[in-house]
């Protein structure tokens, strides 16, 4: 329990339930959608790596909200009507289950609810140096705000984008516009280099041995990234995706095992409150690798 408290970095934790409307909802790659939602005041409290709990519709099913990483926040350009610019939060989601299937059918103006910003995001206070971001598929989402902040801090940022095929790679131009150097690899070679994103990571770490790594993606990928970083003695922060009911630390459904967890001295960390971003040394990787549920369950 002591460890749990020391893990929580200082964050403002100003969260709110927004009863709001969709501004846009578009398919950007087969199965991947990006949705802009009206959210005044959201941006100033949102930190890279935080998430929202999204209520798909007022009626049932689905019963529970779904967690989604924040892609970015921003303002729509002011209209010529003289009204102030409209603030939005944008999420990117992949259609994997009943909840996300309903979301994919939503349109501009539809009423939705979102709770956020939630959780403990990336520690990106570092003011300099080489940063390597590793994102797999939908795991690219929380890396966008992170990349922006790191670049603003004066860091040099390389993004390794991985996916099964080219369909899993999105927002390349947007990342590049931030000033990020991107490297793409796909399992089937339909875009970028053929092979796993972790092969690229190996190479980059040899070239930039002092780099820090940030990663989000499927558990198998995270586990491989963890092992590589361990070998190179590289600091790593990972963003996990667990099924959760509340998103605010009440249901205790989303816990993961912390480093040093044993039957006698169990350590369960709430991925919604202590996480979703963890420094890799605080996690029990053998347990995580075993519980490889690959995020399909939460959506």
């Amino acid at each position, binding site marked *: 329990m002591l460890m749990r408290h020391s893990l929580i970095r200082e964050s403002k934790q100003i969260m709110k339930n927004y009863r709001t409307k969709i501004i846009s909802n578009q398919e950007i790659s087969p199965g991947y959608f990006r949705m802009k939602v009206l959210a005044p005041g959201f941006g100033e409290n949102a930190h890279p790596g935080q998430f929202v709990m999204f*209520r798909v519709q007022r009626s*049932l099913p*689905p*019963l529970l909200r779904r967690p989604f990483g924040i892609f970015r926040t921003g303002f729509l350009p002011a209209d010529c009507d003289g009204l102030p610019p409209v603030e939005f939060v944008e999420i990117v989601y992949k259609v994997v289950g009943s909840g996300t299937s309903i979301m994919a059918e939503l349109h501009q103006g539809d009423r939705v609810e979102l709770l956020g910003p939630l959780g403990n995001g990336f520690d990106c206070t570092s003011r300099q140096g080489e940063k390597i971001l590793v994102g797999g598929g939908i795991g690219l989402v929380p890396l966008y705000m992170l990349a922006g902040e790191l670049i603003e801090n004066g860091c040099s940022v390389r993004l390794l984008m991985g996916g099964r095929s080219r369909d899993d790679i999105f927002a390349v131009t947007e990342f590049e516009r931030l000033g990020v150097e991107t490297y793409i690899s796909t399992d089937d070679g339909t875009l970028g280099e053929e092979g796993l994103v972790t092969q690229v990571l190996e190479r980059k770490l040899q070239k930039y041995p002092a780099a820090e790594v940030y990663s989000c993606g499927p558990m198998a990928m995270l586990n491989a990234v963890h092992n590589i970083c361990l070998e190179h003695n590289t600091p790593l922060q990972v963003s996990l995706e667990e099924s959760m009911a*509340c998103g*605010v630390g*009440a*249901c205790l*459904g989303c816990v993961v095992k912390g480093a040093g967890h044993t039957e006698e001295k169990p*350590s369960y960390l709430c991925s919604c409150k202590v996480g979703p971003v963890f420094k890799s040394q605080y996690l029990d990787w053998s347990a995580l690798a075993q519980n490889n549920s690959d995020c399909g369950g939460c959506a």
Partner: protein
Amino acid sequence: MSELIDKALKRPNLAVEIAGIKLRNPVMPASGTFGYGEEYAPFLDLEKIGAIVTKGLSLKPKAGNPTPRIAETTSGMLNAIGLQNVGIDAFVQHKMPFLRTVNTPVIANFFGNTLEEYGEVAKRLNDIPEIAAVELNISCPNVKQGGIVFGTDPKAASEVVTLVRKYLQKPLIVKLTPNVTDITVVARAVEEAGADAIACINTLTGMSVDIHTRKPRIANCTGGLSGPAIRPVAVRMVHQVVQTVSVPVIGIGGIVTPMDALEFLIVGARAIQVGTANFVDPTAMLTIIDGIEQFCIDEGIDDIHQLIGSLKF
């Protein structure tokens, strides 16, 4: 004074009394869905709800079950959290200071692994002046010991209530499991043993399977089913218990909307608890309170007691 204003405005009286504690309205969270209150403070005014019910407390901190712990099912949620909690010491040290600042009765839910532990926690809770009442959990389906072992056997239930009663001057609410053949038998047993009120129902034991991996969807294999899926079962059981005992009954089970809450009140629940709905909408309880009030206004009811137990056959 506020009562006079309410009367002048023709606002219905929603205040109820459970086992000697006065609640401003009959709506409170179900244990385990509201943390220790603080978790939900950013989203709703805790001084608007009838009471705060804590996560189940035990003598020692409890880590809970392996993951995955939750799975959504049709209009329901299966969980096997395993009563993870900070333990009574940490509760007093870290959670009570916040709860003291809130002007709403605090009901401490607790459980034990053994009879002795139940007694020990009861003793400790009795010493905390700001705790208005305690809710004795003899109904958790997700832990090997503690909870359900006591809740399914009327004799064991009676024994644990008698013991706890011995150490406790505070009002005692006993929370019952629906996983029995006849809930009225256990209800009668705990009433006779000294319960001041009965809360029912806890979750229904259920199971769900991932057809692709062919594994249970939660690590514990079985879990407790909650949410709207169980509501009709809960209404029936609350009705049965109300017909059986003379102590007040707190209705629980799948309440999401004000209409859901009204069903429980009409069958005779003096108060209700909102569980899974807190996860879906952190402000659900406020919507329910407003909805009950509006219903009373629409129906020309000036006191909620006119509604409680008004079931017609």
